């Protein structure tokens, strides 16, 4: 499932995602190292799998980028200094509007380590294939996010008794007025969760332009669709929000595993929410070579929607035998958890390596992929084929 730097298109390096029509250019964007370009207008960039072997924090210059609307990203003039202001209005007693500098002066600044992952991470691996952004598994990353608690800001604005939901709008704009603006909604109990931040920094630096500078919503454990970038308008609602990006977009089958029979449509859907459990081998790419008889250290990452990882097991024989991996430092329940395992391959030949994580609720990963028509929430046990030589 890895993906390799495989060739060149018009003089540029390419990256071969492991599915049909998966050859992509590696392109350098502002504040980024060369990343796997899925689309250019608006920009969508994927992180090469090898980056996740560098450490449990994904460097800012390698962090994936996903926009929806061609009026993105917003220009420098809209984002810098006092030109950028965030407002909070709607069903509140005291509406607010302030610059980012005022926001961090007025409210307590806190930090959380959390994974952000695109709802469609791994969509290109769905079979049967589904339309949409055709990504491998690199539309994810883990960072230390610093900012103020959304709950503190909401409370300071004095919520009305009938406040039910909160909507979030960023400065990324539709190309034409008929295209629905990208607005997302949290229920009030989610919005008041102290882990939800209005973030200004990522891994100790201001947010990169393409990751939401100067302010983005961080909703730990939840898919990236809620992590509104260039966040400038927060609205407290006393009725249920109706809008394209909440319904019909970004919805999953109303089923505990968010799946339907391949090729069929769900009868009922709900908004996508928390991550399911995932794990990845990061130390060995697809097609990698290891030496027979020598001890090999296999490394990877695991994460879930906020319960925290309890266990990772490893198999080098297609699931007949499993061995427990050693978990690395606990980054908090929302971060990438590193795991390592020492494996001594026996005879020569091909081996299929699997890693499978279980969270503290006992939820794990299926051995067979689950399917849904939008290509969301892939969490099958991924495999990496290596050659023992």
């Amino acid at each position: 499932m890895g993906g390799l730097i495989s060739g060149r298109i018009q003089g540029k390096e390419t990256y071969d995602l492991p599915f049909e029509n998966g050859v992509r250019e590696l392109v350098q964007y502002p504040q980024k190292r060369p990343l796997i370009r899925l689309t250019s207008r608006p920009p969508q960039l994927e992180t090469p799998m090898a980056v996740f072997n560098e450490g449990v924090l994904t460097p800012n210059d390698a962090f994936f980028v996903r926009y929806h609307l061609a009026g993105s990203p917003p220009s420098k003039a809209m984002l810098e200094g006092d030109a950028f202001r965030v407002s909070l209005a709607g069903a509140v007693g005291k509406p607010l509007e302030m610059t980012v500098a005022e926001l961090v002066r007025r409210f307590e600044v806190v930090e959380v380590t959390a994974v952000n992952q695109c709802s469609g991470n791994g969509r290109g691996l769905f079979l049967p294939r589904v339309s949409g952004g055709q990504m491998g598994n690199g539309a994810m990353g883990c960072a230390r996010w610093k900012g103020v608690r959304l709950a503190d800001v909401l409370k300071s604005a004095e919520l009305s008794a009938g406040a039910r939901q909160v909507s979030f709008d960023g400065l990324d704009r539709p190309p034409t007025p008929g295209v629905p603006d990208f607005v997302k909604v949290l229920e009030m109990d989610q919005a008041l969760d102290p882990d939800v931040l209005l973030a200004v920094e990522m891994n100790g630096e201001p947010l990169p332009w393409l990751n939401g500078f100067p302010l983005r919503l961080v909703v730990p454990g939840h898919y990236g669709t809620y992590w509104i970038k260039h966040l400038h308008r927060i609205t407290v609602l006393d009725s249920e929000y109706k809008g394209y990006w909440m319904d019909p977009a970004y919805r999953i089958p109303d089923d505990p595993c968010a799946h339907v029979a391949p090729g069929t449509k769900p009868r009922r859907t709900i908004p996508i929410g928390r991550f399911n459990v995932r794990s990845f081998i990061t130390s060995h790419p697809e097609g990698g070579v290891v030496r027979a008889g020598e001890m090999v250290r296999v490394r990877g990452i695991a994460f879930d929607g906020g319960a925290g990882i309890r266990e990772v097991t490893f198999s080098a024989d297609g699931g007949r035998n499993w061995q427990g991996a050693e978990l690395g430092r606990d980054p908090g329940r929302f971060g990438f958890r590193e795991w390592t395992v020492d494996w001594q391959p026996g005879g020569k030949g091909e081996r299929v390596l699997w890693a499978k994580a279980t969270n503290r609720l006992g939820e794990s990963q299926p051995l067979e992929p689950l399917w849904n028509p939008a290509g969301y929430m892939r969490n099958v046990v991924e495999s990496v084929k290596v050659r023992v030589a």
Partner: protein
Amino acid sequence: MRRFVLWVWLILMTAPDVGAADEWKLPPEKTTLRPGPGREVVLGQCLPCHSADYVTSQPPMVRAAWLASIEKMRSKYAAPIPTNSVALLADYLTAQYGKPDPGP
């Protein structure tokens, strides 16, 4: 005064480019569409709202799937694609980026 202007000019022209300008500039779009009947319709009615790679990166899809994508763009994303262009558009996408319908 003239000398001062010259100095300013020299400093501006020779100052190391710290990337300040590039930091806010995106690399150009490069993906192009394959030639074929209907290509002009895609250029005129699809690409104003997104780059060509939104089309070219899709898995090979049958005509009905391309039609569903076109319909989604018209009904949900306000794409101004006239009804009488839909068939030509679907033909082009299926011929260049699709696959034939599975046999019976």
